[in-house]
């Protein structure tokens, strides 16, 4: 006699929930499969779509809808709770930038990118709580974000302090350190990438292990920490580091300008004495 639908359902559910029912190695190995899930064909072009891309597109959609909802009914007086929340976030990031060495105007110029990156990383990690694969599981995603962040830091640094100022920032303590300062711009993306990837991947494997050993209740509670809170921390850190690196450029260029001015003054002083 073939099993009825209810029996099959219960059997599958039990297989899914039974402690030790799944092979941990197999679960993890199948989840770190970065191969494209399917291809979108447009004419001759075929675009590979990975699971990370699906999460990213989903998080972008969520953020867009959230943004459109939050910008409705903005007021100058008698503000609503959601506006107060957004303003708090905005002022928090401005304060962060000011602490990193930028002035208010520079902080406002740099804010759109940094805050977007933070929210984007947070959302693409927090989406894992709904059993979507976290986007940063695929090392390509953090690498892309990190490379673009460093390009942003260089471009925005040049925009804020000018070509001369950026050159000054490269020879900050003494001109001899120029190669190390250039090397810094190669190390920054690597460290940003590995930090995000390692954190998300490690959390995923830990959660996968717990899901295999104790499949009931506990994974959902821990998931709140590892996916939502950890995603928030990672987004915050990414944002914070981008801001700090940018503030460093501004600060270093000011230092060098000051140092050179002092040197010139000394030379002038000596000449006057002679």
């Amino acid at each position: 006699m073939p099993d009825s639908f209810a029996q099959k359902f219960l059997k599958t559910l039990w297989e899914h929930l039974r402690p030790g029912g799944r092979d941990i190695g197999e679960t993890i190995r199948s989840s770190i499969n970065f191969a494209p899930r399917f291809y979108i064909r447009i004419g001759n072009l075929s675009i590979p779509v990975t699971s990370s891309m699906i999460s990213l597109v989903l998080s972008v959609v969520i953020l867009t809808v959230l943004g459109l909802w939050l910008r409705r009914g903005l007021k100058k007086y008698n503000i609503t709770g959601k506006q107060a929340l957004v303003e708090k976030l905005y002022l928090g990031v401005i304060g962060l930038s000011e602490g990193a060495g930028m002035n208010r105007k520079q902080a406002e110029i740099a804010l759109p990118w940094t805050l977007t990156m933070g929210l984007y990383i947070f959302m693409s990690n927090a989406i894992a709580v709904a059993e979507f694969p976290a986007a940063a599981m695929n090392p390509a995603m953090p690498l892309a974000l990190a490379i673009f962040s460093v390009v942003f830091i260089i471009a925005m640094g040049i925009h804020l302090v000018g070509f001369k100022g950026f050159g000054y920032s490269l020879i900050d303590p003494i001109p001899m350190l120029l190669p190390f300062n250039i090397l810094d711009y190669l190390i920054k993306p690597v460290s940003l990438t590995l930090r995000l990837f390692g954190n998300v991947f490690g959390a995923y494997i830990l959660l996968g292990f717990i899901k295999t050993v104790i499949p009931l209740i506990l994974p959902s509670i821990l998931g709140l920490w590892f996916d939502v809170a950890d995603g928030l921390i990672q987004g915050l850190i990414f944002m914070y580091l981008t801001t700090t690196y940018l503030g460093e450029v501004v600060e270093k260029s000011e230092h060098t300008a000051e140092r050179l001015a002092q040197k010139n003054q000394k030379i002038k002083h000596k000449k006057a004495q002679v």
Partner: protein
Amino acid sequence: MDKALIAFAAAIAISIVGAISAIGISRVASKAFESMAKQPEVASNIQTSLIAAIVFIETCAIYALVIALLLIFVF
């Protein structure tokens, strides 16, 4: 290569770095809290630097984690 040997190597990598970075983070945090208690007026400044310092220490730990994961899943 022997599977057990690789697992042992990964365990050594993560355990040493985990222990040492935990010690580092605890030292940073204890000093930061001490100075926060001494000078509550600059507590917010200290907090930001504290997060930065912890992040840099944590990065080292995550490098070890990545290497351990690579050891397990690549070899």
